[in-house]
């Protein structure tokens, strides 16, 4: 019943939106800023999440001369994920908890303003064990901060004064935030963390002007909560798209377990203005003990395509039905057009934690390509392209083994072949540049009881480098998403937990857990330049231009799950350790930190190179 009303309302809203985009425009401010490559106006640089920059002053032939231009201490010794934003002559910097925000004048690196929120420290244990924040968003003259304590704050970009705040969760029941808010058109989108606390995931859209809630789309539960139209919301079924039908989520849970259903939404979001669809993935279902939650546990581990104005889901695709390994589906969903079998396809590409890279038609939701992006992935023999389901290898099924049985040598580990560290797209070669983990695990599930605000995990894990490989725990790879193939792979000693950046200068940048920022060629992965920062890098590389000069920057400050993982290897099970790799070695290379590094070519370097090239 509610749906008929809703769809009627949707019709009206659609008309209204069209009118609005003609008159006021959605967010002309942000779209104009993103269109100018001098800025780094959103976390991924664009709506599509390509992490590509048209800047080319720094290029393959001169990148070797890159030097430190300036640095800045964030004052916080925790994992630094995400990146700053650059709008015109101002850089906006964020920190992990307590989530300070600094507006820095690019002219002289003085502070224009500082925002230092007071948050109840009781949120820290609920975030156990690291207090990362994946960055700010900009739009409509405002800076948006998603605090750990589930407060979304809109700040005046010029003064740092609070314009509005909204509360999107409750830390007392384990709800926190680590995700960056995202501005699309006239909305600010945010999610929720707490997949290890029995939190029920959802995405919330707020009106950018006043912070009024526009819609909430839940990951699990009744159709009305999911914002599903059982007849119109589609999913891949028997080789084609078909309606999900009534109670598509409820049917896949026992009793009321969906209320602790997980499907949290702490990753990155992308947006296609032409289709007016928002894309994102949901996280792991309820407890990590699979035998405690029979069924497919829909729609955890799922890519959602939702209408931005109404939140109604156009289509969904579940990567890992009935998760048995904590393979959250939250990784980013970059939107690119690809030539697939001779046809130009409006595609989306998703490198899942489960070790499979998916290419889907972003308009229809059709499954096009699903291939392993690390040959060591062993829990599945591959995706059945007709059903869209991965075929589980029984030996690695923690559900088949049952509680209190330690299942060994599962690849990848729970942190996935890739986690939140975002990929970049090379617009010249149409290849993705992918920071990956090369880590396997043992997994022992056990019965666990839910207590609000207490961990609801139910599995003990150990992690180690992929056995019988190069001994390292990561690779940086180039991926052909049209054909589902690795083009080249560069081994790394540790997981690459840093977001990549590709530029028109034929360079791709990324950071390492030892603390190196590296520039490599997108053609073959050949290393062109590296610099050791004081702490491990889990932030994302970004670039901007100021005063006619291109800069490249990154946060240096180890932490996050990788940082915890590094220490986890200290005296961990010895199988697979030893060799060259092992997180235990990380302590030899780096320690905690919290700083921003900005690099540029020395004066005259670009001119000299240009002359050489002539």
């Amino acid at each position, binding site marked *: 019943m509610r749906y008929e009303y809703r769809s009627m309302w949707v019709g009206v809203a659609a008309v209204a939106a069209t009118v609005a985009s003609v008159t006021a425009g959605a967010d002309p401010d942000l779209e104009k800023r993103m269109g100018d490559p001098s800025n780094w106006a959103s976390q991924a640089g664009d709506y599509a999440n390509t992490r590509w920059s048209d800047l080319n002053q720094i290029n393959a032939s001169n990148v070797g001369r890159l030097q430190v231009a300036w640095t800045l201490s964030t004052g916080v010794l925790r994992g630094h994920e995400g990146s700053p934003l650059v709008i015109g002559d101002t850089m906006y910097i964020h920190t992990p908890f307590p989530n300070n925000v600094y507006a820095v004048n690019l002219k002289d690196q003085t502070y224009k303003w500082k925002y230092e929120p007071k948050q109840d420290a009781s949120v820290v*244990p609920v975030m156990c*064990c690291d207090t990362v924040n994946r960055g700010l968003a900009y739009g409509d003259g405002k800076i948006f901060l998603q605090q750990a304590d589930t407060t979304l704050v809109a700040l005046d970009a010029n003064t740092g004064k609070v314009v509005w705040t909204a509360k999107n969760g409750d830390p007392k029941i384990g709800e926190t935030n680590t995700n960056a808010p995202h501005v699309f058109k006239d909305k600010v989108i945010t999610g929720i963390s707490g997949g290890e606390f029995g939190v029920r995931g959802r995405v919330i859209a707020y009106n950018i002007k006043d912070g009024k809630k526009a819609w909430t789309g839940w990951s699990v539960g009744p159709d009305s909560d999911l914002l599903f139209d059982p007849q119109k919301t589609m999913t891949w079924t028997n080789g084609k798209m078909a309606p999900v039908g009534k109670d598509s989520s409820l049917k896949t849970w026992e009793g009321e377990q969906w209320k602790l259903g997980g499907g949290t939404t702490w990753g990155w979001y992308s947006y296609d203005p032409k289709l007016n669809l928002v894309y994102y993935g949901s996280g792991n279902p309820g407890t990590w003990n699979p035998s405690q939650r029979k069924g497919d546990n829909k729609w955890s581990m799922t890519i959602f395509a939702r209408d931005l104005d109404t939140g109604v889901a156009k289509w969904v695709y579940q990567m890992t039905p009935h998760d048995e390994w904590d393979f959250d589906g939250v990784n980013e969903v970059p939107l690119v057009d690809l030539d697939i079998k001779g046809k130009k396809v409006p595609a989306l590409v998703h490198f899942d934690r489960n070790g499979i890279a998916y290419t889907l038609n972003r308009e229809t939701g059709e499954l096009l390509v699903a291939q392993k992006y690390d040959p060591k992935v062993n829990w599945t023999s591959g995706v059945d392209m007709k059903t869209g389901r991965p075929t589980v290898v029984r030996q690695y099924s923690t559900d088949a083994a049952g509680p209190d049985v330690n299942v060994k040598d599962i690849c990848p580990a729970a942190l996935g072949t890739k986690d939140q560290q975002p990929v970049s797209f090379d617009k010249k070669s149409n290849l993705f540049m992918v920071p990956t983990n090369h880590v396997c695990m043992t997994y022992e599930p056990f019965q666990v009881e839910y207590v609000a605000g207490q961990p609801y995990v139910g599995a*003990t894990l150990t992690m180690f480098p992929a056995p019988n490989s190069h001994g390292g725990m990561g690779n940086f790879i180039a991926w052909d998403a049209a054909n589902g193939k690795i083009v080249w792979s560069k081994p790394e000693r540790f997981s690459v937990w840093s977001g990549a950046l590709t530029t028109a200068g034929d360079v791709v940048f990324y950071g390492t857990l030892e603390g190196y920022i590296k520039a490599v060629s997108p053609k073959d992965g050949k290393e062109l330049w590296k610099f050791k920062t004081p702490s491990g890098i889990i932030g994302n590389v970004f670039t901007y231009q100021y005063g006619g000069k291109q800069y490249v920057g990154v946060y240096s400050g180890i932490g996050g799950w990788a940082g*915890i993982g590094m*220490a986890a290897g200290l*005296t961990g099970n010895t199988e697979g350790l030893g060799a060259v790799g092992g997180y235990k070695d990380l302590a030899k290379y780096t320690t905690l930190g919290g700083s921003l590094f900005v690099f540029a070519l020395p004066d005259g370097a670009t001119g000299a190179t240009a002359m050489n090239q002539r």
Partner: protein
Amino acid sequence: MKFWKLLMFSALLTGAAVAAGAADAAPYTVKEGNKVDQKTLMGWRTWRALACERCHGAQQEGLVGPALVESLKKLTKEEFHQKVMNGNPEKGMPPFSVSKMVVDNWEGLYGYLKGRSDGKIKPGHVYPMDASAQSAQKK
């Protein structure tokens, strides 16, 4: 505050007494490194269920939180009790007084961690000592 300090001081004194007496009465019983008494077993299950390893490491070697194999060499039973119940939110340790499982089993947890710290209990899974406890576990 003064009261608190006094309390801590007296706890230290009491602790010393307990530690002195601990030589002949370990707060746990263990055989073959991983077969333990029922109370210690419940302590380990509490450790596991509350996901303590997320901060203190799978083998109590310390991660974001301190290495308990070391801490338990210094902490008295009562200090341990206080720390677990009150937590240290600033540093990320939750106050576990809200968890029934911890309130019911904190002594067993102390015993388990003491056994780990003494090097008497091996890292990882522990099992009940006798068959009757085994069947209790299967329940």
